[in-house]
């Protein structure tokens, strides 16, 4: 946690400088295109919109625009509405311009970007419609599948290398991953949990490599990588939920005693008003909540900063073409710098998430002291 304070400080400084610069320009752009911003096919560049669009989940995998042509990979939409399955490709929406089978992608309001029901024959949102269960294979789901397949391929082959080269020195990919595996085992699991660490090793290893790989893939801006998986609250929330469940299901007598009858505090903190138990129970939930937010915020912030630097080129070009050209090397240089920082953050965040999970497990299985 306090392993790399220097790197995190640099990060904070960068974000601060960037944010100051960005708010100035963003405001300039905003005022510039208020009248045209809601028209389809708007040519004006909106940096905030671009950044958000790159970070949030989507029903299609947008690759690039050439003129007015969108180049994107359509992904399957799977909906359950009124007990019926609706399965079709996201290309039917024509990048959000059309509705299909009574559904469209909402383009404004609080449900922006989600699939909603339309009124028969129009493009208007049907606010009275029932709930749509959306199990679409979105960009992030696809990204998760890609990384899941990669994880399985990488580690089964490494495991094969271990069985084949039994008792020999590690080689190739195996020797590249072995220090990481040993690091997780010795410096994370065993250091935080102690004797019972081996029981949690499979989960911690999966957790670490899942986050680490997705962090790294998120930095590669080319299909099929680059989905902002770990910078999505649903994903980090899912991971945090699993850590929460594992923690509480492996909690022993001492763990629950610590929550409901905290030792070492005066009795009037527990009775008649159970202050300590309330605090402890809140703590049970704040721990995974913090895990969720930390990973999400770190990865999203990193992506936002890189995207922000890239957007600066276009923001400046919109004012004056040569200004954009002059900005380009600066933005690229900062983008490269940020990417290196992101590589570091990719590891640190995976490490922090795993270490904190291990610490929570350690608390849950700790024997009476």
């Amino acid at each position, binding site marked *: 946690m306090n392993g790399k304070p220097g790197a995190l400080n640099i990060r904070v400084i960068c974000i601060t400088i960037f944010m100051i610069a960005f708010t100035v320009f963003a405001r300039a752009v905003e005022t510039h295109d208020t009248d045209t911003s809601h028209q389809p096919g708007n040519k004006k560049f909106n940096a905030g919109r671009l950044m958000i669009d790159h970070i949030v989940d989507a029903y299609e995998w947008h690759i690039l625009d050439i003129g007015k042509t969108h180049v994107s990979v359509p992904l399957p939409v799977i909906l359950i509405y009124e007990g019926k399955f609706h399965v079709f490709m996201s290309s039917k929406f024509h990048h959000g311009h059309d509705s299909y089978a009574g559904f469209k992608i909402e383009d404004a309001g609080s449900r922006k970007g989600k699939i909603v029901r339309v009124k028969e024959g129009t493009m208007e949102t049907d606010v009275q419609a029932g709930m749509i269960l959306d199990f679409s294979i979105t960009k992030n789901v696809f990204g*998760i599948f890609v990384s899941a397949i990669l*994880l399985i391929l990488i580690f089964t082959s*490494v495991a094969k290398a*271990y069985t084949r080269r039994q*008792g020999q020195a590690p080689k190739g990919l195996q020797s590249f991953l072995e220090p990481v595996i040993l690091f997780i*085992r010795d410096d994370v699991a065993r250091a935080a949990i102690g004797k019972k660490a081996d029981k949690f090793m499979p989960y911690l*290893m999966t957790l670490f490599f899942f986050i680490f790989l997705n962090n790294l893939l998120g930095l590669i801006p080319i299909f099929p990588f680059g989905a902002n998986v770990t910078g999505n609250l649903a994903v980090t929330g899912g*991971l945090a939920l699993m850590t929460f469940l594992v923690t509480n299901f492996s909690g022993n007598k001492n763990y629950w005693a610590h929550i409901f009858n905290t030792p070492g505090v005066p009795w009037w903190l527990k009775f008649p008003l159970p202050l300590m138990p309330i605090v402890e129970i809140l703590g049970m939930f704040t721990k995974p909540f913090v895990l969720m937010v930390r990973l999400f915020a770190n990865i999203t912030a990193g992506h936002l900063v890189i995207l922000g630097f890239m957007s600066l080129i276009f923001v400046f070009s919109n004012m004056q073409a040569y200004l954009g050209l002059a900005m380009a090397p600066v933005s690229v240089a900062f983008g490269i710098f940020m990417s290196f920082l992101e590589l570091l953050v990719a590891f640190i965040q995976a490490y922090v998430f795993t270490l904190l999970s291990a610490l929570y497990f350690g608390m849950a299985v700790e024997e009476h002291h």
Partner: protein
Amino acid sequence: MELIQPGLGLIFWMTLSFLAVFFILRKYAWKPILKMLREREESIDKALHAADQAKLEMEQLKFDNEILLREAKNERDAILNEARKIRDKIFEEARMKANEDAQRIIENARDRIENEKMAAIVELKNQIALLSIEIAEKLIREELSHDKKQEGLIKKMLDEIKSN
């Protein structure tokens, strides 16, 4: 708002994929990898332990060798001492015997010489006696060849007897 609205479908697929990855990797990756790592560590431990043991044994062996060497040296010294003593004794005996022999030989020689000397003396005496007699005969014959001289001699001899 889009940024912090978690999608239900995403949570579902995410949980499903993560659990699938977890169970597959647990069975096909983490178990063999961790097992192999543990086994390798154990074998390295064992090897290190064995090396330590071997070193200890080597030291013991060296120690034993030194003792053996020292014993051998002592034994050699003892044997050499013994041999020297025996040699000295043999020398001494030989010397004594030689002395004795020499003494005896000298003794013999002396005896012989004494005998020879005595025999020579006796011989010489005899010879002298014979020669004396011969000389005396010749002398007497010479003396008595002249009557005068015979008379003088008889006279002288008688004088001598008388004076006695």
